[in-house]
Structure formats: C-alpha cells, structure tokens
C-alpha cells in the first residue's frame, strides 16, 4: 500500500462563492473525506487558507498571496492510502473541488522515508 497526496488546484482562488454554496461544498467535502476514511484509506488532510499567504521571490521580494501572478492556486490537500495510482485517481474523481470550472486535482505519490520502494 502506498500513500498519495491529492492536491486541490483552483483556477482562481479569489473567486467568491455564496455562503450557501460554500456550505454545500463543505458538506460534500466532509462526506467525501468520510467515505475515504470509512475505507481506512485516510491519512491526513489540510485546507490552505488564503489569509496570510505570501509568495517569496528571489532577491527578498515578497508578494501577497499567490493570486494575480499565478493562474492556479493550491487550496488544500488530502493524503490517502491506495493500492495503486489508479485507486488514488478513483478517490480524486470524487472530490467536490472538481465541480468548480477549471479546477483540478493533482495526484502524487509520497516518497517513502526509507527510500527503498
């Protein structure tokens, strides 16, 4: 069993959703994570709020947020256990993040600490 990180990529993080919409997404996200956890495949997850977001550039240049300059922002991630990348992809397909136009979920295998396999 390997661990994979599913990274939520939002096309435009500054877009404001209505409170009702946000609550709906929250519920869906909780159900989605709950479903993975019910299969004992959940490892951990985190949202990445845009408050206090900075981007550090060469020569000590610091800008607010990743917005504007970068088209795509990362909204959060979840780590799962899966037999294969295909299984991890199946998990990703259920992510409510994909309901937002232009959004995507990037699936990455997490390197094992022992570096063997």
């Amino acid at each position, binding site marked *: 069993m390997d661990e994979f990180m599913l990274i939520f990529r939002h096309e435009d993080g500054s877009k404001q959703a209505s409170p009702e919409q946000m609550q709906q997404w929250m519920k869906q996200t909780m159900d989605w994570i*709950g479903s993975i956890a*019910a299969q004992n495949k959940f490892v951990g997850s985190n949202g990445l709020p845009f408050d206090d977001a900075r981007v550090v550039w060469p020569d000590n240049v610091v800008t607010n947020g990743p917005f504007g300059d970068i088209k795509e922002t990362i909204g959060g991630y979840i780590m799962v256990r899966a037999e294969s990348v295909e299984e991890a992809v199946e998990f990703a397909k259920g992510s409510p993040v994909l309901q937002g136009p232009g959004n995507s979920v990037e699936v990455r295998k997490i390197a094992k600490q022992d570096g063997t396999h």
Partner: protein
Amino acid sequence: MKFDGPLPVTRWQRTIVNSPSVEQADLIPHLFRTEFSKITAVLCKHFGLHQIEVAEDIAGDTFAAALETWPHRGIPANPSAWLYTVAKNKTKNLLQRDQLFTNKIAPQLQPGPERPDPDIDWSEANIQDSQLRMLFAICDPVIPQEAQIALALRILCGFGIDEIANALLANKDTINKRLYRAREKLRREKKDLSFPENEDLEQRLATVLTTLYLLFSEGYYSESREAILREDLCLEAMRLTYLLLAFDSPHRPSVMALLALMCFHSSRFPARKQANGAMVLYEDQDRSLWNQELISRGVHYLREASGGHQLSKYHIEANIAYWHTRPEESPEKWENILQLYNRLLQIAYSPIAALNRTFALAKARGYDLAIREAEKLQLEQNHFYFVLLGELYRELEPLKAKEALQRALDLAGTDADRELISRKIDQLG
C-alpha cells in the same frame, strides 16, 4: 441512577442479605465488592505494589470475618469502619506472625523490635488517592490491554474470577493466568504506587482512558447473558472515570467526554433488554424507558468537556451518543451523526464506525448512495457488514437483503448474533 446510588446486588451478597438470620436487609449493595477495591488499594499504597497479593488476601479474610460475624450479631452500624478495623488488625497480626514478611517489610515501616499498630489511613481522601494510583499502576503499558482490563475488574472493581470470566467470555483458567502474569509484572516493575511524572503521566492518562473505555464497552456490548453483570461492569467503569475527574490535567475534557458517552449509553439499559434477557435493538426500543436523568447528566458532562481546545475521539463518540438519545427521527439528527462519523473515522478508524457511518449516510443521503458506499468498505469478513447490507436492501431489494442476511448468519460467531439475524430474516417474510 447515580454512581454511588443503589445498584443491583450480586448473587452472593444477595444470599447474605436474604439470609434469615440477618434482620435488617439494608446492607449497602456491593459493599464487599466496593470495599475490596478500597482495602486493597490502601494497603498497596501503604506497603507497596509488590505486596498486592497479600493485600488482596487481607481484604478477602476481612470479608470472611464479616461473613462469620454479621449474620449472628447483626450488621454493624458502620460496616465500612468495621471492615477497616478488621483489615488493620489482620495486617497487624500478619506483620507479627510472618517472620519472612516481617523481615522484608516491617523494617521499612517501623524500625525497632516494638511494632505498634500499623498506621493505616482510611480517610476518604486517602482511599480515593490510593484507588487512583492503583488505576494508573494497572494501566502500565508493560501490561497487555486485555490483562489490564481483567486486573482492573479484579483489583479496582472487586469482581470474582467467575464474574470476570463470565463478563469477558473467557474461561477461568485463562483469566487466572492472565491475572497471575500481570501481577508478576507489576511486582517486578515497581515498588510503590507513585504516579508517573510529567509527560509520562499524560501518556498514562491516555492509556487509563482507553482501558476505562474498553471496560465500559465490554459491559455494554458483552455477549454475556447476565444482564446484571454487564450493567455492573458499565457502572464500575463509570465510577472509575468519575474518580478521574478529581485529577487535574490537560486531558480533563476527554475524561468529561468519556463520562458523557457512558451516561448516554447507560441511559438505554432499561430499554435494551426484554424480560427473558434478549437484546432489543435501538430502533425497536420503547423510548419512554430511556433514563432521562442519565441523559441530562451526560449533557452536563458534554458541555463541561467542550471547554478546552481538545477534540478527542471521546468527544466525537459522546456527541454521536447524544444524538442517539434524541427520540425523534429528524433529518438534522442523521446529518449530525453522519458528519460526526466522518470526523471520527479520520482520527480513529474502526470497522464498526465505518459501518455505522454508512447507516447514517443511508438515513441522511438515501439508501442507494449508502449501498454504493458500503461496497467500498471491504469488510466481507465481518458479519455486521452483511447485517448492514441486509438493512440497506430491505426496502429496495428484499431478495438481496435475504441473501446478505444469510451470509451474515454464516459468519456470525455467537448465539446472540445468530438469533438477532434470524429474527431479521423472519421479518423479511
């Protein structure tokens, strides 16, 4: 029902109480059982944990003395004080009689050849402190979990070997061996009943909570047919958890949450069993039998538990249990239960939580979705999985429901489970 209130008497206490020579039938229920734990704990704190068997023997001999005396002369006005005096005298006699014991122990206590009364402190404060120390000593990680539970039942709850074997569905030899090994370990590992220090204390408290949680669950979910015994187990777990409240620690909110969980579950005791001892399932229970006093106590503890920033699995489980005490089947109820299971599974996965989450999903989001989710659970070895499928298919596809329940019946390990499943199959018609 209160923790220290009237509880059902055990069989052998009942024989004392009902014996014709005892006029007054108001012997405090569970007196011996309770005092066994107190006397053993206090003596161990006094003499050190390596004398645990001696302490247990003295407690046992003390009850034997009561059994010889009380039926003939009447129950003393203060039975506990009587027992403590006898226990003290027995300790003194033992100190004087047993040369080996005297040489090993007494010099540490009282130097010199003259040995006055051993100065044993029977104050309520010292009794509580001793029991608390004992609880922490028993929950030492060097002792396997199942042995911790047996040891807690023996030493802290005063259960007999028969009762422990019955409650844990094991045979007496197994329990005896388990207890023997655990006692040996305790004796070798430590000399006194001091609390672990600093971070060790915090870690130990977590183990203590786990053991109390399992102790309660053993009682609540035990397949033992003896309903009274099962309830006693739960009440003892509650009493010990209650004892922990005296302990100031960052884990205190978790202790509160665990206590709330226990209150909510216990509130259903009167509704769970039929006259013949068979279990009544949650959805079939007479809700007017749920104990409202325990429910409001649970609500009180849960509120207290919400003080800190901690969200332990006990908090989540207590919240789930709270929603189960609400009699009405509202969408809000199942939505909340679903979200709580979503959360619980992230911090503490268990197959039973996964199955319960799927049931809540059916109630909150519909049976079709729940069936699809159930199929992802990979719990085909678990008979409750097929019980769940039977439930989910019941209305939609009765044939599939029957098929699932049949598989559950093949997998079920106990008569009680087979009986429940057979009843469900019959209901399908």
